[in-house]
């Protein structure tokens, strides 16, 4: 038996005569080659590589986190989808009460902060550092809310009327801030520990090294809605 495109008879390396399905050229993609990957035409459909390729193809369309090997037109489509998602971010619903409460606390504490538009990547005040601040608040608030620690989180676990109004009105900044707070809450509930067990945080217009000494971690300066400088300080 030879492959049907062979000019000379050669052994079919993948054929298993005990399993007729091994002769099905598209079995490895479950007869769906339009959607799933086909790197070399001989890859087993159950291999991790094939699944990974398929997943990458799917993610490329759905999320477009990184450029991927797609025809230019497809990449352009993906960019358009991504741009649309940035212009009109979709509100992410919490999956349970714990997520909702922790996301709301995180939003209430730091949802009004914005990255410094002049900050370079990972620099003080950058979007990366703001995400770090959101995660720090979520982690610490989660510890305080869900432990026997004698202190308590003062800010409410409900969103304020203004925040709800902004989200319902489709405010991009409010929805993005909520989604980021929710992501931080999920990470914290999932056991993230970037704050190494810290129990204290504070938002402040000043760096707070004087308070916590070398143990303090200052994040920022970020900006509030009016452009005022704000820091997020956390400490053990």
């Amino acid at each position, binding site marked *: 038996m030879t492959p049907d495109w062979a000019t000379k008879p050669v052994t079919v390396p993948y054929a298993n005569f005990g399993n007729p399905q091994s002769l099905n050229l598209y079995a490895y993609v479950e007869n769906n080659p339009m959607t799933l990957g086909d790197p070399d035409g001989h890859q087993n459909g159950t291999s991790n590589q094939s699944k990974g390729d398929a997943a990458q193809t799917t993610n490329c369309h759905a999320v477009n986190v990184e450029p991927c090997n797609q025809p230019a037109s497809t990449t352009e489509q993906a960019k358009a989808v991504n741009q649309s998602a940035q212009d009109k971010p979709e509100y992410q619903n919490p999956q349970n009460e714990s997520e909702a409460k922790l996301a709301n606390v995180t939003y*209430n504490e730091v949802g009004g902060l914005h990255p410094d538009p002049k900050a370079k990547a990972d620099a003080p005040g950058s979007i990366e550092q703001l995400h770090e601040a959101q995660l720090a608040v979520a982690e610490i608030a989660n510890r305080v809310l869900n432990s026997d620690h004698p202190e308590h989180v003062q800010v409410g676990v409900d969103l304020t009327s*203004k925040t709800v109004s902004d989200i319902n009105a489709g405010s991009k900044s409010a929805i993005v801030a909520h989604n980021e707070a929710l992501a931080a809450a999920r990470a914290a509930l999932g056991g993230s520990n970037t704050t190494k067990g810290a129990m204290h945080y504070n938002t402040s217009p000043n760096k707070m090294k004087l*308070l916590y000494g070398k143990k303090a971690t200052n994040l920022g300066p970020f900006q509030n809605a009016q452009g005022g400088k704000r820091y997020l300080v956390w400490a053990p």
Partner: protein
Amino acid sequence: MKTSVLAVLIDLMLLAVPVMVNGQPAVTKPSESELKSLVQAIQDEIYDYGYQGQYFPEGGPVGDLVTESTTRVPLYIKPSLDDEEGHVIYKLMPYGEVLRFFHVQGDGTVVLDGDPELGFPSSQPNKKTVYLKDSVVDLMKREWLKSSFEVELSPSPERVQGAVRRQKQRNGGFSAWESARSKGGKSKQ
């Protein structure tokens, strides 16, 4: 969330002590128009959120009665603006006395920082003064500009609508008064 008294002390001592420039305090006294804008922002927020009744509890009014239905409440303002940002202490009922940041916009409008519904917790820059050390609060009240604002128990509809309109301009279209009367409510929580 815990906020050390020491932290607040340090933080607010920085607020209370004027910056020295060439050996002289660089005190930029807010203009009369800015003070008027600040008072209007405070009053507008009270009327927009409907807090005015909270100034007239059963036991007696908060502040000094001007008429049977108007009370005058003290206001303490830091005598300098830092990057157009100022600080004020006043009684915002039902929360109590608060330290609040405010921002003077380019057109002279004042926008108060912070969302009152958060309740002015100790973890926020805008907080109840009960979280500060008494001596620091006393110092600020002595050193800062002293003014006042009036609260009417039953403001006219025109006064309330004026407050709503200005609050919407300050807050990106949001008005607590309108929100409370809309069907939108707090649906996403």
